[in-house]
C-alpha cells in the first residue's frame, strides 16, 4: 500500500482541533490533579482514622490498577448510578483523580519533611492548626514538589490519549476519524505522535524554566 503523506493537508484541521482538545483536557485534568493531590495528602495525613483508612484503601486500588480500567469504571459506572456526564467531563475526572493520587504521594512526603518548628512557630503566633497547615506548612511543601509534579503532568499529557477509548474527540480520536475517511493509519497516527511530541517538548521547556526560578529564589 505504501505511504502517501499528501492526504494530510485535507484533514489537518480535524487533527489540529483534536490537538486543542488534548491541551484543554490536559490543563483541566492537571488542575484537578494538583488541588486534588493537596486535598488527598491532607486527608491521608491529618483526617480522623475513620476517614483516613477507607481513603487509603481507595488510594491503594488506584495505584495498583491501570488508568484505562479506571476510565471504564468512571465512564460506565456513573451512567449506571444515573449520572450521565459528557465523555469529556468523565475523562477529566478519571485522569484528574488518577494523577491526584500520584501527586498526593509526593505531597505527603514533602509535608512530612517540612520542619516541625514551622508548625510550632505558626501555632505560637496564634494560628489555629488548620490555618497553620493552610498558610505555612502546605505552601512550603508544595513548592518543594513542583519539579516531580511536573513529571507527573507530562505523563498525564501522554495518558490523555487513553480517553479516546471512551469517546472524547481529542487528538487520538481525531486521528482515528481521519483514518476512517482515508484508510491511512500510519500517516495520521504519525501526525498525532508529532503533535504530542511538540506539546511534550513545550511542557518540558516550561518545567525547566520553573525549576530554574525555584532554585534561584532559594
Amino acid at each position, binding site marked *: 500500500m505504501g505511504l502517501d503523506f499528501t492526504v494530510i493537508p485535507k484533514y489537518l484541521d480535524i487533527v489540529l482541533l483534536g490537538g486543542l482538545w488534548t491541551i484543554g483536557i490536559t490543563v483541566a485534568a492537571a488542575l484537578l490533579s494538583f488541588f486534588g493531590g493537596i486535598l488527598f495528602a491532607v486527608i491521608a495525613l491529618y483526617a480522623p482514622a475513620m476517614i483516613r483508612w477507607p481513603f487509603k484503601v481507595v488510594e491503594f486500588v488506584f495505584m495498583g*490498577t*491501570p488508568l484505562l480500567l479506571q476510565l471504564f469504571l468512571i465512564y460506565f459506572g456513573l451512567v449506571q448510578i444515573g449520572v450521565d456526564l459528557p465523555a469529556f467531563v468523565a475523562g477529566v475526572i478519571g485522569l484528574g483523580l488518577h494523577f491526584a493520587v500520584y501527586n498526593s504521594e509526593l505531597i505527603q512526603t514533602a509535608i512530612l519533611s517540612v520542619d516541625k518548628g514551622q508548625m510550632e512557630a505558626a501555632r505560637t503566633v496564634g494560628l489555629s492548626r488548620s490555618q497553620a497547615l493552610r498558610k505555612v506548612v502546605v505552601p512550603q511543601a508544595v513548592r518543594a514538589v513542583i519539579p516531580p509534579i511536573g513529571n507527573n503532568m507530562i505523563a498525564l499529557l*501522554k495518558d490523555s490519549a487513553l480517553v479516546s477509548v471512551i469517546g472524547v474527540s481529542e487528538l487520538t480520536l481525531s486521528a482515528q476519524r481521519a483514518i476512517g475517511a482515508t484508510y491511512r493509519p500510519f500517516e495520521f497516527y504519525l501526525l498525532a505522535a508529532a503533535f504530542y511530541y511538540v506539546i511534550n517538548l513545550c511542557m518540558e521547556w516550561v518545567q525547566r524554566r520553573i525549576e530554574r526560578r525555584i532554585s534561584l529564589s532559594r
Partner: protein
Amino acid sequence: MDTDLMLRVYPFFLEAALVTIQLSVLTALLGLTMGALGAAARLSRFGVLRFIGAAYVSVFRGTPALIQLFILYFGGPQVGIQLEAFEAGVIGLGVNVGAYMTETIRGAIISIDKGQREAARTLGLSQFQGFYKVTLPQAARLMVRPLGVNLNMLIKSTALVAAISVVELTYTAQRYIGSTYKPFEMFLLAGILYIIIIYTTGRAVAWLDRRVQIT
C-alpha cells in the same frame, strides 16, 4: 453487589489474567534488552550511537504508548510489517518501556564514581574488564529498585493492548461491562487480579533489592 454474576464470570478473568502475566513477562524481557542496548548506545564513545540512543529515549518517552502501539499495529501493514495483535502488543510496549529502562540503567551506571574505573585501570584491568568486573556489579545493585518502578508501570500499561483487541484483563472487563452493565463488579474482579500481580511483583523486587545490598 451482584456476587452471583461475579462467581459466574470469574474464570474468564483468571484466564485473562494469565494473558496479562504473559504480556508483562515478555514485555519486561524485551524492555530490559532494549534498555541495556539503549544505555550502551547513550554511553558509547561514538557520537552517532549517542545520538541514536538519545533520539530513541526522547521520541518514545515523548509520545503516548497508545499511539506507538497504533502505528505499529494499524500502520505496520502499510510498510510491510504484519503482526498479530499479541505480538504487536509485546513489541510496542517493550520498545516503549525500553526507553524508560535506558534512562534507569544509564543513571545507575553514571552514578558509580569515576575513581572506581580509574583504580581498576591502575590495577592492570582493561577498560572492558574494568566495566564488567568493577562498575557494572556496583551499578546493578542501584538499578533494582528503579527498574522495579518501571516494571510496575509496565504491568499497568499492558492494559493498553485492550485497544487493539488482545483478550487480557482490561479487555475482558470492558467486554463484560458492555454485556452485563455492571461496571463496578467487573472493575472489582479485574482490579483484584491486577493488584495481586502488581503486589506480588513489588514484593519480589523488594526481596531482590534487599538481597543485593551490601550494607
